[in-house]
């Protein structure tokens, strides 16, 4: 191969632009993915796409675990529509809402299944028609969008509308909604544009004479309805489809008791029509809507998902899919996940992806070793966050066990160095270090360019003989185009990519 000497360095003038910077192209900072700019515009610290890996820190990009064993199976002929977690005393439970209107409870420790409500209890089983919360560690409370849609479960007895209420009295008739929360020791229910609240310290008395009540919002910014009510940091946030309000300063005084509070608007334009995507994250609220993921800092609604802009809206209106979210503690880090249908930038297919965030700057994506996830939720007990998900038939823990059952892919940026505007041909070496925490599946690095796959070169890396750091032998290649990037693919169950690098030597100039 003819050797071409690089031109001598000359001072930069308007007529002789300086040579572009040389030096290796290195992937080691692992600062998360960024699909917002074009692949050429991604910073050197980031990757364009991360799927199945978690960017932990510098030189630390680790494959994500896969699903745990099956823990709940939908009865034959039914589909899992919605589930949520609660605890009775210290016993952790999950309430599962099925397509036939039945509600089951399973104990997440013992896996014992108990029927909460018989088939036909929930008349229209749909994510947006069901709201759940827990009252202390005593009751699961759930509401449905149907005429008599307020229910209480104490772990053994279901209290139904018109029947006896826990602690005495009768359960209210005609009460219903699609969201419920406990705030200031009162039950708050959202029913379209109306908020209904109970008397203090009561789960069944909503009468005005006891300090209960309701109000309906006719504010122009509400648009349609209240999707969620969420208690955080001493406030009750009302998440509308296109707005956010909050309640504070709740007081019940006088005889007969009258409840007053402040109800103010926080944001008159941005809310979420996806109630299952609204989550508490520390002292803030996260929610997803049509144009991204947002955090509510006090009254400021701030979009935090700009790095996802390249894929987030790739499926128009999410094809009618209901977004859901949850949290998980993975490798000691608390992460927030939202399930979004996107066009996978690798396969070009529609996939339901877990878009994940560390709460700071790093975003990444993942699937699990299931065909298609349709709903996720997290369980929090003893400050441990575990993400659970379902494909409609089975509920399992996610990110539980190292797995080679699903694909992990990376796309680096497309580097323009050393000189994209003049490169005719170049030769290169791929080098790096990968830590094999477990040796099972091989890793393939594909060196590619702006020409896509036409001239890409796949470089399978040999498997090491044992676990540990593996500084693999440099792999030579011919640069396939003017821009250069890497695609990394593996099904390995547990590896950490420390560093990948490319050294390029221009061998022929264009023009």
């Amino acid at each position, binding site marked *: 191969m003819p050797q071409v000497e690089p031109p001598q360095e000359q001072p930069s003038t308007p007529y002789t632009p300086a040579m572009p910077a040389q030096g290796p192209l290195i992937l080691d900072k692992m600062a998360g993915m960024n699909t917002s700019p074009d692949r050429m515009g991604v910073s050197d610290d980031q990757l364009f796409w991360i799927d199945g890996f978690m960017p932990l820190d510098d030189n630390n990009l680790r494959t994500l675990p896969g699903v745990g064993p099956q823990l709940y199976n939908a009865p034959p002929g039914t589909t899992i529509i919605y589930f949520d977690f609660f605890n009775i005393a210290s016993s952790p439970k999950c309430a599962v809402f099925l397509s036939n209107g039945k509600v089951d409870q399973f104990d997440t420790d013992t896996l014992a299944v108990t029927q909460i409500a018989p088939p036909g209890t929930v008349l229209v089983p749909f994510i947006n028609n069901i709201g759940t919360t827990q009252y202390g560690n005593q009751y699961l409370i759930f509401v449905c969008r149907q005429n008599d849609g307020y229910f209480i479960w104490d772990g053994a007895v279901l209290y139904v509308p018109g029947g006896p209420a826990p602690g005495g009295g009768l359960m209210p008739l005609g009460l219903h909604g699609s969201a419920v929360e406990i705030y200031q020791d009162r039950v708050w229910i959202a029913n379209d544009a109306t908020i209904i609240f109970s008397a203090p310290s009561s789960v069944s008395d909503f009468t005005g004479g006891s300090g209960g009540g309701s109000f309906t919002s006719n504010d122009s910014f509400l648009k349609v309805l209240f999707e969620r009510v969420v208690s955080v940091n001493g*406030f009750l946030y009302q998440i509308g489809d296109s707005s956010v309000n909050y309640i504070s300063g709740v007081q019940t005084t006088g005889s007969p008791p009258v409840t007053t509070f402040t109800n103010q608007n926080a944001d008159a334009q941005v809310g979420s029509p996806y109630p299952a995507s609204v989550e508490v994250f520390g002292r*803030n609220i996260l929610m997803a809507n049509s144009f991204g993921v947002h955090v509510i*800092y006090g*009254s400021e609604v701030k979009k935090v998902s700009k790095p996802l802009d390249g894929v987030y809206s790739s499926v128009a209106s999410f094809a009618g899919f209901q977004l859901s979210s949850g949290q998980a503690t993975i490798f000691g880090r608390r992460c927030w996940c939202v399930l979004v249908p996107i066009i996978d930038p690798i396969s070009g297919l529609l996939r339901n992806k877990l878009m994940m965030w560390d709460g700071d700057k790093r975003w990444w994506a993942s699937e699990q070793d299931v065909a298609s996830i349709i709903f996720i939720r997290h369980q929090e007990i003893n400050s441990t966050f575990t993400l659970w998900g379902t494909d409609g038939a089975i509920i399992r823990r996610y990110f539980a066990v190292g797995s080679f059952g699903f694909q992990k892919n990376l796309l680096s940026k497309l580097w323009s160095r050393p000189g994209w505007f003049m490169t005719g041909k170049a030769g290169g070496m791929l080098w790096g270090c990968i830590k094999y925490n477990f040796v099972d599946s091989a890793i393939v690095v594909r060196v590619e360019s702006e020409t896509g796959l036409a001239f890409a070169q796949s470089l399978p890396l040999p498997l090491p003989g044992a676990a540990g750091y593996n500084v693999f032998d440099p792999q030579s290649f011919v640069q396939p185009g003017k821009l250069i990037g890497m695609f990394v693919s593996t099904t390995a169950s547990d590896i950490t990519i420390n560093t990948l690098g490319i050294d390029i030597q221009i061998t022929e100039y264009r023009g």
Partner: protein
Amino acid sequence: MALAVLGETPKTPEQLAVWSFVHMSHHRDIIRVIFEATGLRLDEWVIDPFDPNSDDTWIYQHAIMHNQMDSVLGIAGYDLSTLDWQDPEILASWINANQTEHYIAGNILGLG
């Protein structure tokens, strides 16, 4: 009410947003409950959001709100009319004094 937030010195824009929101909310609650209890209508200024680097009006209006609140509730109070967000010692002292007044007012009014 997250009065504990008022005792924190915000160090990032996000923390400032939360602090400012909690602060304004508590003032609104105080004004509302005083009106409900006494019929007295106190002044309510827009003190959220604000720019700590360029808003002298905020200090003035906020001090008025505290003076009115203290007068109605019989709180001895502090001088909250002087603040430099760039001086850590002055800021810490002001944050503490402001939170103390809010805490006392909350206790008197049953707001927490």
